[in-house]
């Protein structure tokens, strides 16, 4: 069924169709309407789930940790300060190897107070052991959420769906919503490494030899590595059932014959693609590698697809004292890159900006690390 939905409502529909049984969340703009919608669905009995109205984000993730460890498909969502407030639980859930899905509607971090997008919040999850994805459009946010449950449960790792504040969360786009029957057929029964059940007297997470911590981390690292293949496989299988494939960990856009490759992630990639189309007409061979997943990180794909290309990484985030976070990551895989920092705090960056930016890059008029647009930072 094709229908008009905002990103937040699309995620809520995906959670419903994935038959999540427990949802816990605390409101924060711009995430709020996801859980408002889910609360409404629960109350109208459109979804057979419990909604726990927790008193904080720390408790939101703690509560779904509890419900997931007891064996039920669970979901939460947050943004920015909410994510930072639950940060302790972010790590705990991953280290405990508990599958669940969380949506992070990306929003900058204060002060000053600002509810608009950049990717700094999501990227703070980098080292925690979550599988981290980022949507470009509303349909992809929906698809990633459904796929997230499958990937998370197969990998035994938690999964996050990132999407930009307002540009996706509150922007309505036409979405192809699959039927419940089709999702049921595609999404297997939940599985997980272990459960907490009465009468099974196991103790989970007690102190122990240091080697056990080390072995657990190594196992996580290996599982994360295996998840690369898993993400690609799930993308393909999803494509077979629902007709939409994105390319797995990365999406290529007019990349193969490009001299200049742009690496970026999130909703603004759509505008950048429009700019690429326009520049192509002007005979500038630009292409894009869009990071759909930040963890596991697609080094292999980057090395293969960006070989012998000039690479520009456009970051909507910054690692203080260094460079853009994607910039750091991409250069760790392929070496020398140029890094533009733009759109921080939701500053609007449109097709014209991208066109100018890519043109300047081709003309070698960008600094190694360039805050965009230059005149704003004079």
């Amino acid at each position: 069924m094709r229908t008009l939905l905002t990103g937040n409502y699309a995620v809520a529909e995906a959670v419903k169709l994935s038959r999540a049984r427990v949802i816990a969340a605390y409101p924060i703009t711009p995430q709020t309407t996801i859980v408002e919608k889910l609360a409404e669905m629960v109350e109208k009995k459109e979804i057979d789930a419990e909604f726990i109205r927790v008193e904080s984000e720390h408790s939101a993730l703690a509560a779904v940790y509890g419900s997931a460890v007891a064996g039920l498909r669970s979901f939460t969502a947050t943004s920015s300060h909410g994510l930072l407030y639950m940060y302790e639980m972010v790590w705990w859930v991953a280290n405990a190897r508990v599958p669940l899905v969380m949506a992070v509607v990306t929003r900058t971090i204060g002060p000053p107070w600002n509810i608009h997008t950049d990717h700094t919040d999501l990227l703070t999850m980098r080292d925690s052991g979550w599988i981290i994805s980022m949507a470009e459009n509303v349909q992809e946010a929906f698809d990633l959420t459904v796929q997230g449950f499958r990937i998370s449960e197969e990998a035994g790792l938690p999964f996050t769906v990132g999407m930009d504040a307002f540009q996706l969360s509150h922007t309505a786009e036409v979405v192809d919503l699959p039927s419940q029957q089709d999702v049921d057929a595609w999404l297997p029964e939940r599985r997980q490494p272990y459960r907490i059940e009465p009468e099974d007297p196991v103790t989970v997470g007690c102190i122990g030899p240091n080697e056990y911590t080390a072995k657990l981390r190594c196992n996580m690292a290996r599982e994360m590595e295996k998840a690369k293949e898993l993400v690609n496989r799930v993308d393909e299988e999803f494509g077979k059932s629902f007709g939409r494939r994105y390319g797995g960990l990365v999406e290529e856009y007019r990349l193969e014959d490009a001299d200049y490759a742009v690496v970026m992630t999130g909703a603004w990639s759509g505008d950048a693609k429009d700019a690429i189309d326009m520049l192509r007409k002007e005979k500038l061979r630009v292409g894009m590698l869009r990071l759909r997943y930040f963890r596991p990180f697609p080094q292999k794909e980057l090395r293969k697809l960006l070989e012998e290309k000039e690479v520009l990484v456009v970051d909507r985030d910054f690692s203080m004292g260094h460079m853009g976070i994607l910039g750091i990551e991409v250069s760790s895989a392929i070496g020398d890159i140029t890094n533009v920092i733009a759109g921080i705090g939701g500053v609007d960056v449109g097709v014209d900006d991208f066109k100018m930016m890519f043109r300047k890059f081709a003309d070698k008029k960008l600094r190694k690390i360039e805050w965009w647009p230059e005149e704003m930072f004079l």
Partner: protein
Amino acid sequence: MVAGGDVSMKIDELPRRSSLLPGNPSCQGCPHAIGLKALSVLENPVLIIPAGCTTIIAGIHPKAAFNVPVLHVPFASAAAVASGLAASYRKEGVEASIVVWMGDGAADIGFATLSGAAVRNEDIIVVVSDNEAYMNTGIQSSSTTSWKARTTTSPGGKSEEKKDLAAIMLMHRIPYAATASVGYLPDFINKLKRASEIDGFRFIHLHSPCPPGWRFDSSKTVEIARLAVKTGAWILWEYSGRFRITSPSKPYKDGSKRVPLEEYIKTQGRFKGLSEEDVEEIKSKIEEQWKFLLAFEEIFR
């Protein structure tokens, strides 16, 4: 019959074996280890343990010290994790007594979590085993440390009041709240049993004198817990629709029946060097607490 102060029980009603197995890492004379024995009266217990002494007591991998399911959770998260667990079990029709066992440290850092779970009237039992300081990190002041008690962060004696956690929890309009003491195990067991027959959020504030933390000999845990009650410094009460002072504390409603406070204070290194004025001040604080709770008894008849 087993005498537990004024509460007696038939020996056969008492749990013979603890859910905590011998040879665990608890200190000699540990009050938590005594209190945890009471949990064996519960059907299908599932234990949620945030950071604290009981994190250690629970055993060292691969050997768990509990023979019931235990989930270790971050410090401030326990009541929220329990809420999620309860939601799952409710959805699946799983029968379980979900017990959050925490110290006063977790009750401090997780106070919002505790309050949120109480407001939602989550179907869980929360026991705060209160040894009146952060013992697991080495005896630092908590919000339930007694006024003037010496800790490593209040070497000259704590300058703030002891927070009445149980009364605060009661004010959440939960169906069950009580105080208990490891010195009166039958009373604690009775309270747990009563709590287990009620649905919703149940809270028990358990007084747990700590030998290394309060600086007394490990053989004195029960004796000192009892002295706290006999001097009126710790008052046992229960609310389950009505509020009442419970048996071990009943005689001490009458101040003249109480053992002199000095008998309690002198047993503990943490109160060493208190002036006479300080002791008098503590006595007046205790008197105030009695007035407060007796008024409660009048109100919630």
